[in-house]
């Protein structure tokens, strides 16, 4: 602080703007890109989404000759191509929770809400920014996964599948949409729970603990209920074949969207009501 003058003069601001949604969107984008760990997590998630199917394809190709007919029948080209989606959904979910929970743990949420005291535009902007970023990363990632795995498996006739075959393009792009929705769902959970560990635990409970827990129920109950769980409904977006006791891709997708909307609504109500 070199200038020790009798009075400190603050340079005046000649332009005075007001809060507008597009401005909050830009501000949230600045926040998203300016934390190093966030940036690198996204890059890592992107690369892993492609790396898994590539490795899976190489392993399958090298072992194909020694695989039993039943093992061969168990391999489906689309499963191989979208093997990275599981990793991607975890990475996107954790980051989704962090995008808001880290604001609470560091206290920066106070700065955020002083700048935008109506609060809700912040939630909309975070959701929209994150949805766009994850979509822009995931679509190329799953397309690259699909074509890379197909190229690696080119000499195995049974594992060749055309992008233009019915349902294939929908499943590939759908897997990216699914991951984007997972991110939205996780971000909303982060806003509800306001705590990183709690948010991730809640997400894991809903996506990874609840589904196997359903097998403790009588089969008829499990069959009736499981298909409506967020993870099971959501996965139908990128399922190629319609299995028994699952929803259609469209219905499943809509059910998952409904879960996301519900989570967003709860997050929004609490965001406005609670003290920070």
């Amino acid at each position, binding site marked *: 602080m070199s200038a020790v003058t009798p009075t400190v003069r603050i340079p005046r*601001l000649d332009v005075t703007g007001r809060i507008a949604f597009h401005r909050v969107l830009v501000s949230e984008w600045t*926040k998203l890109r300016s934390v190093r760990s966030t940036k690198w997590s996204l890059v890592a998630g992107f690369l892993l989404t492609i790396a898994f199917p590539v490795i899976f394809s190489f392993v399958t190709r090298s072992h194909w000759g020694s695989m039993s007919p039943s093992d061969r029948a168990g391999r489906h080209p689309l499963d191989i191509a979208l093997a990275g989606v599981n990793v991607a959904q975890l990475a996107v979910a954790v980051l989704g929770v962090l995008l808001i929970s880290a604001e609470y743990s560091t206290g920066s949420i106070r700065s955020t809400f002083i700048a935008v005291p109506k609060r809700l535009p912040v939630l909309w902007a975070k959701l929209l920014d994150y949805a766009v970023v994850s979509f822009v990363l995931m679509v190329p990632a799953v397309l690259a996964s699909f074509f890379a795995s197909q190229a690696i498996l080119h000499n195995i006739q049974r594992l060749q599948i055309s992008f233009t075959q019915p349902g294939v393009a929908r499943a590939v792009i759908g897997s990216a949409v699914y991951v984007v929705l997972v991110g939205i769902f996780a971000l909303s959970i982060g806003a509800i729970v306001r705590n990183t560990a709690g948010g991730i635990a809640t997400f894991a409970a809903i996506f990874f603990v609840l589904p196997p827990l359903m097998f403790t129920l009588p089969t008829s109950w499990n069959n009736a209920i499981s298909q409506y769980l967020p993870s099971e409904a959501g996965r139908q977006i990128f399922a190629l074949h319609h299995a028994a006791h699952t929803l259609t891709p469209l219905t499943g997708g809509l059910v998952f969207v409904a879960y996301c909307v519900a989570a967003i609504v709860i997050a929004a109500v609490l965001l406005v009501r609670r003290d920070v």
Partner: protein
Amino acid sequence: MIEARDLTKDYGSKRAVDGLSFTVQPGIVTGFLGPNGSGKSTTMRLILGLDRPTRGDVTVNGRHYRDHPAPLHEVGALLEARSVHTGRSAYNHLLALAQTHGIPKRRVSDLIDLVGLHEVARKRTGQFSLGMGQRLGIAAALVGDPKTVMLDEPVNGLDPEGIHWVRNLLKGLAAEGRTVFVSSHLMSEMALTADHLIVIGRGKLIADMSVDDFVARASQKVVLIRSPELERLRDALDGPGVSFEPGERRALEVHGLTPEQIGDAAAGAGIVLHELTPQQASLEEAFMNLTRDEIEFATEMEEVVA
């Protein structure tokens, strides 16, 4: 201008702010004083709409803070609690704030220079010292060139040069006609900067007056006297409501009488006076006197407010 009416905030069964009514005027520095845990930070959060009052109301420049279309141009605030993401640089923190109002990047650079953070602007704030964090917080408060500036314990962690700088900043802001509202638990700091004081203890208003009035009201009537006939003088002055304490170097402290009354009594009894000095309590003493009861309560409250 900040106007609070019957402002009250409960956290569970604890009442952190209790029926506060006050007005903070533009053009002067208003000190917001109270022991730690007396409800200063809570009051500031209520002003900013971060917390909702249990009862009562507070407006800034005529409206609830959240109803302003451009809140950063109305109020610039530095909170005592950490309000910065540790993984983000100072520059990006300020930029993200500025962008919500369409404030240009140039403003961010100007303020970084102003508060002397130029060299560390691109470093993550997690590596900042307390003083650097305070400077960043002050820069954040000034981003919107606000009409009202509200700072919670701004000199915390600053070096003497920084403290001096903040004092000048506050005076400069007030001289420009802005409303300046600064909290502190240090009376001595307020004595150097504030024109007006709002004092609270246990969330309640204790005093709302000019610094001069505050000292006059809070200091007891104490006069130091010296005389070769101290014993006789003592007898002449004694009466209801008057008490004595031995002072240094054979002087006597008289409580409960004005210098005029003592002089007249001495003259009436024909006693020579060698000294007659009204003792003015320092701002620090005045503050201690007013808030003595509240301090025992402070530790308990801090847990609630934190």
